[in-house]
């Protein structure tokens, strides 16, 4: 089923995508599907496990379900401190 998803890109992902946010209509089940389908946008060559994802401002797993209308935040490897 095609879902309308708002995707937000951060740090290196944002620079590669050239935007911090966009709406996409994609056929996805999980957050991991979003990452994979939008590889041409965020450009990441990182293993999925090095990156993080949040759905509607809550940290999520890559296996978490994505619903129509969700906002998916794609985080490159973090480096606080």
């Amino acid at each position, binding site marked *: 089923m095609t879902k309308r998803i708002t995707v937000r890109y951060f740090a290196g992902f944002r620079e590669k995508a050239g935007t911090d946010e966009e709406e996409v209509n994609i056929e996805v089940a999980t957050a991991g599907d979003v990452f994979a389908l939008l590889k041409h946008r965020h450009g990441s060559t990182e293993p999925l496990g090095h990156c993080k994802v949040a759905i509607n401002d809550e940290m999520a797993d*890559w296996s978490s379900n994505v619903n129509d209308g969700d906002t998916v935040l794609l985080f490159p490897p973090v480096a606080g401190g």
Partner: protein
Amino acid sequence: MRISKDRIEPDKLRDELVDRGAGAFVSFEGWIRNQNEGQEVVRLEYEVYEPIAIKDGEKIIEEAKKKFPVLHADCVHRSGLLEIGECAVWVGVTSAHRDEAFAACRYIIDQVKVRLPIWKKEHYAKGHSGWVNCERCATHGHQHSSTVASG
């Protein structure tokens, strides 16, 4: 947990944790070094996604308080452009005895570094810049914990 665009003032933050029952205070500060992985760094830029950084930062502090019998704990992380020598992150903990203050302070900074949505871009002396990320970690055989992998 706070994210600050302004200079961190450790002495003021310390004073906020004062408690007549506290016998130990341990603080950690992360400072901007003039080099990283052999490259000369001139300044550093922090990007922070504040809604989650604050919420999950609070969660980390609460976890530390549950794990160790401390009195107070707090953390402040900078965002924006920082110069060499500036304090990027401050963690402070007070407790009755020193064991738990050291342990909780260490726990908080370790978790903050790997869990919060914070990224840093190094600006090098040679003019280029780069996000500090796991391509570099991979080169150096850095293993991510399951906490990181599972988000």
